[in-house]
């Protein structure tokens, strides 16, 4: 693989950039692989990458029914944070956050991780106590956060209105090392690195059946023919239920549409990510200058990648209340993605009733920020059969009533 660098760009400029090679190969599927990952989104590609990097497993195919990174990886609001309350969540999200810090170098692909800081506003006494609890938990989890004063909030984000007529800002939970990243680049960077390790990324290849022998997976049927494998990883946010059904087990999951929107680009006015959970809205400013805004999730099962507009209304009015200056900005574009909601709103990274079939799903609204940590843990789980990062996220927890419930701290987790 030719390395990317300013020098390489300059060299190519001399010949009008006609010499660049493909970022990833586009091969035909082989008959058999050691591991097949279904889903070439961030989580699937990261899983493959760490299988190769940490465990030397490179005879891997990543099957994608559409185009890589075309699912939620390319539809989210790119927030990266790890200020979670429960130990298992804090562990995997913090692992992810720390991997994001070096990802551009690790992948030789600039994913523009921008540790600009994430602030969660506390706007009721109850929320203040909740975030103080999270701050104490984070301190013991090795996650750097602090509960800051309203004055500090105003310094961090001058466009905020501290005294809305409704919910005055009483403080906030601040994670200075959280931030944002370029979502597409994460998928592209992993894809390029996987391809370079000799893995096959096969796009436009939909899985139509999971083949089993004696309760054990032996391969999959796809629109590009049958492919054998020893181990199968299902990493298809939004369609996990469909794949699980093929494999022959059920999931504690419902798929709903989650929406987001961006404003027209304006000059920099907000350097950090702000989440206001009492009023249900969050916002950051992209490097292009757009205000990136997260909306709510629909209350009904939906596979259309279109949501109901009233969620956009609720989010926008909440943010105008919090940042009155955005009232005269304009909404440029809105879109939706399909997210898997589990029984406790936490993800599932787990073995399944089918031997050698592993599943990674249920990230709900929190998927993007977890990508590297999720891939790291999933790879370990698939290679070694267990991982401390994924242990608490097993399917069995629902039967035992051993939940990982984050709604405890913040109303919503994005």
């Amino acid at each position, binding site marked *: 693989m030719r390395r990317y660098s300013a020098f390489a760009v300059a060299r190519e400029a001399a010949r009008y950039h006609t010499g660049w090679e493909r970022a990833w*190969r586009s091969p035909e599927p082989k008959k058999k692989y050691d591991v097949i990952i279904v889903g070439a989104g961030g989580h699937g590609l990261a899983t493959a990458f760490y299988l190769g990097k940490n465990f030397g497993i490179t005879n891997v195919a990543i099957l994608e029914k559409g185009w890589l990174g075309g699912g939620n990886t390319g539809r989210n609001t790119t927030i990266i944070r790890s200020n979670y309350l429960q*130990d298992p969540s804090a562990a995997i999200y913090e692992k992810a956050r720390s991997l994001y810090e070096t990802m551009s170098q690790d992948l030789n692909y600039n994913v523009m991780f921008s540790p600009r800081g994430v602030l969660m506003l506390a706007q009721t006494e109850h929320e203040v106590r909740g975030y103080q609890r999270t701050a104490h938990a984070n301190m013991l989890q090795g996650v750097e956060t602090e509960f800051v004063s309203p004055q500090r909030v105003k310094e961090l984000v001058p466009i905020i209105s501290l005294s809305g*007529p409704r919910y005055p800002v009483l403080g906030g939970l601040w994670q200075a090392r959280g931030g944002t990243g370029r979502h597409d680049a994460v998928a592209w960077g992993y894809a390029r690195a996987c391809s370079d390790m000799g893995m096959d990324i096969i796009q436009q290849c939909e899985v139509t059946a999971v083949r089993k022998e004696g309760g054990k997976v032996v391969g999959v049927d796809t629109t590009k023919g049958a492919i054998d494998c020893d181990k199968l990883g299902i990493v298809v946010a939004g369609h996990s239920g469909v794949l699980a059904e093929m494999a022959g087990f059920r999931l504690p999951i419902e798929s709903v549409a989650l929406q987001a929107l961006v404003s027209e680009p304006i000059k920099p006015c907000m350097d950090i990510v702000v989440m206001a959970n009492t009023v249900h809205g969050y916002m950051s400013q992209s*490097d292009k200058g757009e205000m990136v805004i997260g909306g709510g999730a629909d209350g009904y099962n939906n596979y259309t990648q279109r949501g109901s507009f009233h969620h956009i*209304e609720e989010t926008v009015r909440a943010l105008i209340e919090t940042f009155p200056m955005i009232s005269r900005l304009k909404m440029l574009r809105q879109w939706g993605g399909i997210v898997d909601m589990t029984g406790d709103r936490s993800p599932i990274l787990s073995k399944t009733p089918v031997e050698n079939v592993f599943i990674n799903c249920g990230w709900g609204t929190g998927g993007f920020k977890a990508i590297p940590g999720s891939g790291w843990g999933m790879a370990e789980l698939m290679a070694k059969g267990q991982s401390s990062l994924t242990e608490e996220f097993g399917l069995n927890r629902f039967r035992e009533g051993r939940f990982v419930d984050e709604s405890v701290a913040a109303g919503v987790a994005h």
Partner: protein
Amino acid sequence: MSTRLAQGGRRIDRRKSVEFRFNGKRLKGYEGDTLASALLANDQMMVGRSFKYHRPRGIVASGAEEPNALFNTGEGATFEPNQRATTTEIFAGLEAKSQNHWPSLEFDIGAVNAKLSRFLPAGFYYKTFMFPRFAWKHLYEPFIRQSAGLGRAPEAEDRDGDTYEHFYGFFDVVVIGGGVAGLQAAKAAGEAGAKVLVMEQTAQWGGRAAVDGGEVDGAPVADYIAATVAALEAMENVTLRRRMMGAGVYDHGYLLAYERLRDHCPDEAGPRHRLWRIRAGRIVTATGAIERPLSFAGNDIPGVMLASAVRDYIVDYGVSPGDRVVVVTNNDDAYRTAIAVKEAGLSVPVIVDARVGGGGALADQARALGIRVETGKGIAKVHGTKRVEGVAICAQAGEGAVLDEVGCDVVAMSGGWSPVVHLWSHCGGKLNWDEAQACFRPDGNRPPTDQDGEGFVLPAGAANGELGLGAGLTDADAAGKRAADETGHKPGRGKAPVAADVDEAALEPVWLMPQGAGAKLRMKAWLDYQNDVKVSDVQLAAREGYESVEHTKRYTTLGMATDQGKLSNINGLAILSDALGQPIPQTGTTTFRPPYTPISMGAIAGEARAEIFQPLRRTPMHDWHEANGAHWEPVGQWRRPYCYPKTGESHAAAVAREVMATRESLGLLDASTLGKLIVKGPDAGRFLDMLYTNMMSTLKPGKCRYGLMCSENGFLIDDGVVARLDDDTFLCHTTTGGAERIHAHMEEWLQTEWWDWKVYVANVTEQYAQIAVVGPNARKVLEKLSEDDLSAEGFPFMAWKDVTLNRIKTRVYRISFSGELSYEISVPASEGRALWNMLLEAGDEYGATPYGTEALHVMRAEKGFIMIGDETDGTVIPQDLGLHWAISKKKEDFLGKRAQERSHMTDPKRWKLVGLETVDGSVIPDGAYAVADGTNANGQRNVQGRVTSTYFSPTLGRGIAMGLVLNGPDRMGEVISFPGTDGKTYDAKIVDPVFYDKDGEKQNV
């Protein structure tokens, strides 16, 4: 130069001149001008800088597709960035400033990017800026952000000075677009009797037809427009709206329409924008078509414009974009521009027609006017930097060898027309590729479908690919009739108006000019003007494997600018397909997402701002609290007094005073927000036994019992006191904010699981004001006001009774959440304020002290009473809180019982509730965790408990807390450590959670 012509301009009123300012300069325009036409009339062709290279940008278009002419307008309360000049009507006092340049439009530092452009191809930032690691955040990113961003950000303290509103509209047929097609479709549907709304995004009806001319039913098209508008206005069942845009089409016939009421007259009273949420039986999209640019070197230099725009400015606004206009085209329509220019008395040095065969009738007409026409030719290069100076002509078939140089100040280009299919596509309408016209058009067989599975969007006219006047009218008439028919109306037999279409020679797709343009030229051939995406960028993306159209879009940012690719998408798509060696339809389009053009955040929020941002719930005593200095605490949508600080008194001091006053004499609490649910019926007892963990059916009429409610998942969700009113009627108190939730919870089980049980539930929370009279002197006060027997014997603890207090009929519950002698008195809300006043007066001799939520919390904590939301957080079961006494062993079943039998719920290692007493009397910080030895497999410090409530107790003069601790109840007296985020460590002794009056003597007196 561009200037105002002596005559012409069907949209402007030359008698009414309007003064406005651009970059501080005072300029004049006419009523009816757009900001764009007025600027051109003042020779202001260059209007901004591009996003990435900061290249000079001029006005390209005349409508919503304009990518360049974006301005900051207004100041302070009216400031707004990125206002599109082509859709902004000028008004007296309009203040416009150009964007994205520093220090000035003419001289821009950022323009160095242009010099470096060769080193900044698509996606260069993915390949660079990686070293050193922290430079991205501190060096590169800030630079990139600053140079991007277009419009200025409003000031932090700017408040929008305008109001906005929504409106819910209901129509059988909504026609989007007020051009001839839209008008005809509306007429056809209206005549059939359908309830019709027809909207036009600009201020004028008729669209482009009047500019292009032609005859309808033998009369000039302008007459047809006037007549049709008049006919529609005469129809009772038809509503016409101008300055209203179809913004988005959503599922089940939901249409978002954006009406701009005051943008053109900001000084008039009324809302600035109105966002219509419309339910339409059928939506007719008569949204017209947008002309495509041609891709040749230098096609981004100010003065290079769409041929149709040049025509619009001349005909609609009497404005000449330039004196010498070179026309370059691959179709006949652009000849209309040449003719219009000529007829306006301006010169057309040459028409460059890429087609070897040249054009049809219009071409002959042009030649007849003496215009030189070059066929099979293209433009090799445009000369000039801030303004077009001339063009180099070459053979379209070649690689760009210059055959001729022609001086000019405007290049009018036309690459053909693309139907506006956005609204058709928003909700899933599919497209077909039309080889002949080289454009995507709606596939009538694959429409977006509604709740009945029926197609609900009907494209009409140019938006349906019927570009000719006659064909368009016929198509629109059919669409209108069909829409009426499908919404249950009988279309009339009236024929569609007839208009002869000039026979035009076929268009020949030209995606690159010249066809064999080399890398050097391709790097100067723009696709996306605002985001600086060039032909070479798309080709690079394809080369690097970003083959999906979505990959290419995201990698190059093609079509991601504020125009959302209205001009660039198809051209980019064609270049990509060519690079991949596959037909265009196989490449496909990117997804069309709402809104069609950007809409204001204010309009989306509508009326919901400031005081009516959200409902604020008030108790009958709210005004008294307000008047008496209450410091408010939002609890759900309620506002409750947190405390009542006296002047100069801190909140902490106020809380301490309220606690002591209550403990020592008399306190009053507004408890009206507590939920009150009436549960009645023969099966009421059985029902409550299922809802509460403890037994309610055995409660005696006249008595009260504290109860716990769990979710089916086992977790504690609410608690409160239940009073049995009579044999089959109970009154269930819930937590504040619990009322609606628990009421819904009850109805859900009654309606969906136990529907054969005879139980009715009613939420009477707001029917009653409830006041807690608390403290050793509580009884004395009530006895002053009542004849009834309130003695300890006559009215024992945990009983209720109807009591008349000074002629007010009340119901009194003798319950206590503070540990003191306490009565909760409920009266109809309309008498709440009267009772409150009466109690204050009667209690005056005992120093009656109103107390707030914090004093309430402190007192309940002193008594070890749990609080839903503090001791519980959705993961706690009653067993964790030592509430076994409230969990019936006798009952076979209750909600949550089965869940509580699961292995993790019965795990002895679950943390249990205890009291915590700091060794030094200090207060443990909220949310602190008790540490245990070592770390877990993920390197996190092990913990063995956490604080759930922690306060300074004025009664005990020390910090007290409750918490959940591993094996807590078995470790009484043991000291555990709570490290605080403040760096201190708080050592606390595990004690009984009841800190005060353990035997309950005070509440039982």
